[in-house]
């Protein structure tokens, strides 16, 4: 038998003036996280509104994580994994590709702009590409404004 009760988690309250985008990025351990790490050690500046969550494979990114991120105050989500064909686990990134396509349709149905989810392939050698992705996403979310889930 299982239990279903759990205290609801709520996003922190901020005023309009204080608002800055909160972007959660799920990066795979083998390519994208290493790519972001490379951007760091290469001292490439990227937007500080992106917070990285390392997962072993982009295929570990359960769609529930994205929904939970949005409901807890994220304004955008980046999912990044190895380039097609390069997945450490053979096909995890293909599963991610299909999940994100369906997830975008789902959040659109909930009245959330599908461009608030971004899927990119970043390899371990593409630190500059990671920084570019983070900056582009931050600019896009700034233009879209804060997300209010369930209002």
């Amino acid at each position, binding site marked *: *038998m299982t239990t*279903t009760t759990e205290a609801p988690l709520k996003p922190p309250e901020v005023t309009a003036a204080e608002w800055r985008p909160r972007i959660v990025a799920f990066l795979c351990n083998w390519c994208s996280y290493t790519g972001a790490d490379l951007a760091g050690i290469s001292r490439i500046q990227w937007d500080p509104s992106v917070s990285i969550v390392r997962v072993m494979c982009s295929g570990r990114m359960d769609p*529930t994580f994205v929904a939970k991120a949005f409901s807890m105050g994220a304004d955008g989500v980046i999912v990044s994994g190895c380039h097609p064909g390069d997945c450490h686990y053979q096909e995890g990134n293909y599963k991610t590709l*299909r999940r994100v396509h369906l997830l975008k349709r789902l959040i659109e149905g909930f009245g959330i702009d599908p461009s608030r989810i971004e899927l990119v392939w970043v390899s371990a050698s593409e630190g500059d590409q990671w920084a570019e992705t983070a900056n582009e996403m931050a600019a896009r979310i700034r233009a*879209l404004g804060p997300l*209010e*889930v369930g209002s």
Partner: protein
Amino acid sequence: MSDKPKLALYWAASCGGCEIAVLDIKEKILDVDAFFDVVFWPVAVDFKVKDVEAMDDDEIDLCLFNGAVRTSDNEYMAELLRRKSKILVAFGSCACEGCIPALSNTTTRDATLNWAFADSPSTVNPDRVMPQTRTEVPVGVLELPEFYETVYALDQITDVDYFVPGCPPQAHQIWGVLEAVIDILENAKPLPPKGTVLGAGDKTCCDECPRERKEKKLKGFVRIHEVIPDPDQCLLDQGIVCMGPATRSGCGGLCVGVGVPCRGCYGPAPNSKDQGTKMIAALASVIDSDDPEEIDRILDGIVDPVGTFYRFSMAHATLGPVTVGAGNGNGESEAGS
């Protein structure tokens, strides 16, 4: 009044199916009546709300509450019965997850009212008269409950002890729960931990499905009216969107047994909170394509992902209720549909 344990049943925003389901236990309803004193059950016995209001707190031993919370009256009854009951059970999918009534969380209160009272083809209402909470007429003031913007599951309104899912809960499960409660009360046994889902399985609907699954990869989805499904093969393998992988077991595979895909009425599978996102994970694994454009073409076969994946669990959808209008994207097209 007898000194038998007291039983109450109530319906809020529901279709009445859960009430019928209780009678589906057939002659065992006599055992229920023999053990319990039914003190409130609007559909079957003639006690009024004022009778409940007159009771002491915790006077009712067991209350089976079915239906979602849609109006101020539903909310009042939910809180009243919580106060008067030792054990409050969210009984059926509406009380557990919002069920069909909560599908109106995909649109606005106004769109719902406009459709129901003015715009639907079977309605004649040229002056667009809408229900009012307070109307003065010559004989006095008429009052109606307030119609809320959102439909809630029972546990979003008040403290719930146990959950019995299903639309409706199946008779053998209901009897199983009642039998267990009778045993607990009669022999002073300890209650299960609070929040337990009763009268359901611990696996997914797929685990009790009689069909054979080969985990085929799909080049397209079909809808149930477009095909005559093979009687022995997994429906999802045949391209029919079946909620089995994301749904709790307990029904005995009723729908899949007669060639209809699982629609998800037993709610999210154990250890998952959100049925829709789990379904996305399951579906993404069976699509046979690595090409973004082809994936989109295949996904076009899934009509209305929100309504399909959250048909019974909309009230608890992580991203719900649907934001209509505003700057978040679309949603407008959902209004009134």
